[in-house]
C-alpha cells in the first residue's frame, strides 16, 4: 500500500473577489523511498496542495481524502495534526532565512523540535542529537556551529540546518517546497546530493515541489505537472521528459533554453496562466494551447491513460500524439547515444509534425 494516497483533493479559498479555486480534484500516491516531483508555474496550486496535507491552509474549503499511513490527514484535529507534522511528515521550505527564528541559536531550534514531540528526551540528549544531525547534513565543526545564530550561517548552511531539523524525528515522508530555488548552482548541487543520500539511507518518501524542470530531471522518480489547480500530466520521469503527451508539458520543456538549440529562438507558451477566480471554460489550458480543438473549449478533459497505466494525461489529443514509438523515440535514442542533452525538444518537434496531431 502506498504511504500517502491523495484522492480527488479540492481546495478553495472564499475571498471578497470570489472563490479562489486553488486545487481542483488532484489525486496521487507516494511510495516509501520514492520521489515525486510536482512541477508547475506560480499559481498552479502546487504549494497549496502540499500545505493542505499538513493542515497549513486555515480558512480553506477542503474536500477529498489524503490517507497517510492509514489515517486521513484531512480529518485530523489540530492537536492530532501537530503530532504528525514534523514527526511523521517533515517540511523543508524555500527560504531558509525566514523559516529559522533569527533570535534563537540553530542548535536550540533543532532540539526544541525534538523535545516538542518527545517529552522524555532530556535537554542534554536533544542538544547532543542536534550536533549529530548537523554533522550528518555536512556542516563543518557541528559542535561549535550548533551555538550559532541563523544569520551566522550562509544560505546553503541554513538550508542544511532546515534539512537537519526535518530529519530530527526520522520522518516517513519529507515535503520539500522549492528547497534549492534561493541557492546558487554549486550549493544547489550539494543540497540535492545530500537529499538523495539521506533518502537512500532511510527509505524516506520525498515530495519535491519545484518550478525547475532540471531539478526534477535530476532527482524525481515520478512527476506530476500541474496547471491551474489540476494535474495536466502524470507519469514516470521518462514519460514526462521523453514521451510527454500534454501540450502544456511540451510547452514547458520547449521554453527552457538548452544547448542543442543554443542560438535558436525560444518557443514560449503564449499568454499567461489564468486567474484562479475566473477560470476559462473547458480545458483550462485551451486559451494558450497550440493544438486547441473545438472540444477543448467546452469540455474539460480528465486524466486518462496514455499507452501504459502509469502515464496519464488530461488532454483530448489522441494517445498517438506522444513520442512513444516511431521517429520521436528513435530521435531521442540517437541524441542520448551521442551524449546530447535536450532531446526532449527534438522529440516534441517530431510530435508536432506527426499526422495524428495535425488532423
Amino acid at each position: 500500500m502506498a504511504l500517502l494516497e491523495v484522492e480527488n483533493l479540492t481546495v478553495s479559498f472564499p475571498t471578497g473577489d470570489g472563490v479562489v479555486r486553488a486545487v481542483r480534484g488532484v489525486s496521487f500516491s507516494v511510495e516509501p523511498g520514492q520521489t515525486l516531483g510536482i512541477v508547475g508555474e506560480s499559481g498552479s496550486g502546487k504549494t497549496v496542495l502540499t500545505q493542505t496535507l499538513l493542515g497549513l491552509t486555515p480558512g480553506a474549503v477542503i474536500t477529498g481524502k489524503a490517507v497517510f499511513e492509514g489515517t486521513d490527514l484531512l480529518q485530523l484535529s489540530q492537536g492530532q495534526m501537530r503530532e504528525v507534522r514534523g514527526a511523521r511528515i517533515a517540511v523543508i521550505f524555500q527560504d531558509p532565512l525566514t523559516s529559522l527564528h533569527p533570535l534563537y541559536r540553530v542548535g536550540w531550534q533543532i532540539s526544541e523540535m525534538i523535545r516538542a514531540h518527545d517529552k522524555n528526551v532530556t535537554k542534554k540528549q536533544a542538544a547532543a542529537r542536534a550536533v549529530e544531525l548537523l554533522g550528518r547534513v555536512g556542516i563543518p565543526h557541528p559542535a561549535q556551529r550548533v551555538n550559532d545564530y541563523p544569520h551566522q550561517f550562509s544560505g546553503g548552511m541554513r538550508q542544511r540546518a532546515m534539512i537537519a531539523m526535518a530529519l530530527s524525528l526520522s520522518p516517513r515522508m519529507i515535503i520539500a517546497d522549492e528547497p534549492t530555488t534561493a541557492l546558487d548552482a554549486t550549493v544547489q548541487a550539494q543540497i540535492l546530493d545530500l537529499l538523495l543520500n539521506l533518502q537512500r539511507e532511510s527509505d524516506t518518501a520525498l515530495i519535491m515541489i519545484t518550478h525547475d524542470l532540471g531539478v526534477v530531471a535530476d532527482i524525481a522518480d515520478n512527476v506530476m505537472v500541474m496547471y491551474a489547480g489540476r494535474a495536466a500530466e502524470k507519469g514516470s520521469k521518462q514519460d514526462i521528459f521523453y514521451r510527454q503527451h500534454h501540450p502544456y508539458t511540451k510547452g514547458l520543456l520547449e521554453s527552457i533554453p538548452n544547448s542543442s538549440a543554443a542560438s535558436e529562438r525560444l518557443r514560449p507558451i503564449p499568454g499567461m496562466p489564468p486567474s484562479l477566480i475566473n477560470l476559462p471554460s473547458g480545458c483550462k489550458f485551451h486559451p494558450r494551447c497550440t493544438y486547441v480543438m473545438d472540444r477543448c473549449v467546452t469540455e474539460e478533459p480528465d486524466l486518462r491513460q496514455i499507452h501504459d497505466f502509469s502515464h496519464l494525461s488530461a488532454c483530448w489529443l489522441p494517445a498517438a500524439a506522444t513520442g512513444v514509438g516511431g521517429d520521436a523515440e528513435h530521435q531521442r535514442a540517437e541524441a542520448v547515444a551521442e551524449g546530447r542533452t535536450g532531446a526532449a525538444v527534438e522529440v516534441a518537434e517530431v510530435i508536432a509534425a506527426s499526422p495524428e496531431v495535425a488532423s
Partner: protein
Amino acid sequence: MTDESPAAFMTGAMPGGDDVLVRVENLVKYFPVRTAGFVRRTVGNVQAVDGVSLAIPRGKTLGLVGETGSGKSTLARCVAGLLPVTSGKVTFDGHDITNLSRHRMQPFRREIQMIFQDPYGSLNPRRRVGAIIGDPFAIHKTVPAGERKRKVQELMERVGLNPEHYNRFPAEFSGGQRQRIGVARALALRPKLIICDEPVSALDVSIQAQVLNLLADLQRDYGLTYLFIAHDLEVVRHVSDSVTVMYLGRVAESGPKELVYDTPRHPYTAALLSAAPAADPDAAASRQRIILTGDIPSPIDPPSGCRFHPRCPKAQELCSQQDPPLEVKAGDAAAHLTACHFPVEAGENLAAEAAARR
C-alpha cells in the same frame, strides 16, 4: 599572445572586429568596512570587484556568470556609472566615463540603460505605467510633453503591451508584463548599451522565454549591445556571444561561449556547468556532478593566492601562494582566457577528484 598580460590582451583587438562599445580595464571596487560610533575608522574593505577587465563588441551580448557574492552586479553598476569606481577605467564608445561628474555623465546615461531583476521592486506602485515609461523623455527632455503619450504608446506596442493600458498601475500587470514595462523604459531613449541584471530570474519558465525572445528581437532591430547578468547558465548560453565567469570579484574564465561551455578550463567553470541541472533525465543520470565543498568565502577577507583554492578539487601548494594571471592557456584559442595554475585538461575526471577530496 600568451606572453602578453591579460589587460593588454583585452584592450587589443577583440575577435570579430575592433568595434568595441564598452571596455573595462582593471576595474576595482572596494566598499570600506567602518567601525560603529563617532570616529568611523575603516577596518577593512569588501573587495567586491578586484581587477576585472572585459570588452563588449558593438551589437553583441556578453554574459556575466557567477554566484551570489561574485561581484557581477557591482561590476554592472560601475559600468553604468551608478557607483564610483575605486580604480581602473571604463571606456564607453571611445570616451573615458570613469567617475565622471553628474553633469558630464548625463549624456552617457541616455546611452546606457538598465533592466533590473525584480519587476515588482523596480516600478513605483503609485505611478501609472505611462508615466513610468515616459520618465526618461521628461528627464532628458528629448520629447516635448505633447508628444509623450504617443511615443510611450509606440514603445508599449513594441514590447508587446497593450497601448490602451497606458493609465494602469503596475499592480494590474503580471510579472512578465512588468518586466516588459522595465524593457520599454530602458528602451525609451534609444540606448546603445542595455545592462540586464538577472532580467528573467523572477519569471516562470514560459514567461521567461517570452522576455528572452523580446530582448533578442530588440537587439536585432536596434543593434543593441547587452551586458547580460544571470546565474542561470542555460539562459546565458542562449543569449550570449561571449561569456565571462566571475568568482569572488575576479574573472575566472572568459571567452566565446562555445569555448567556455564546451571546453571549460577553470575548475570553477567546470563545477558550475556540471552543477546546473539539465531538463533531461538521461543526461542527468549519466553526468557526473562536481560537488564543491563549502560556500563562497567572504569578500572582506578573500583567500590568498587563487581565490578559488579552498574549494578547488585541483588545488595545490602553489594555488594558495600565487594569484594566477588571466591568460590564454596552452592549446586554447586566443580569445579564451583562464586564470588558473592547473587548468582542466580534456578527458579529465574532475568529479572523481572532487569526490576524493571531500
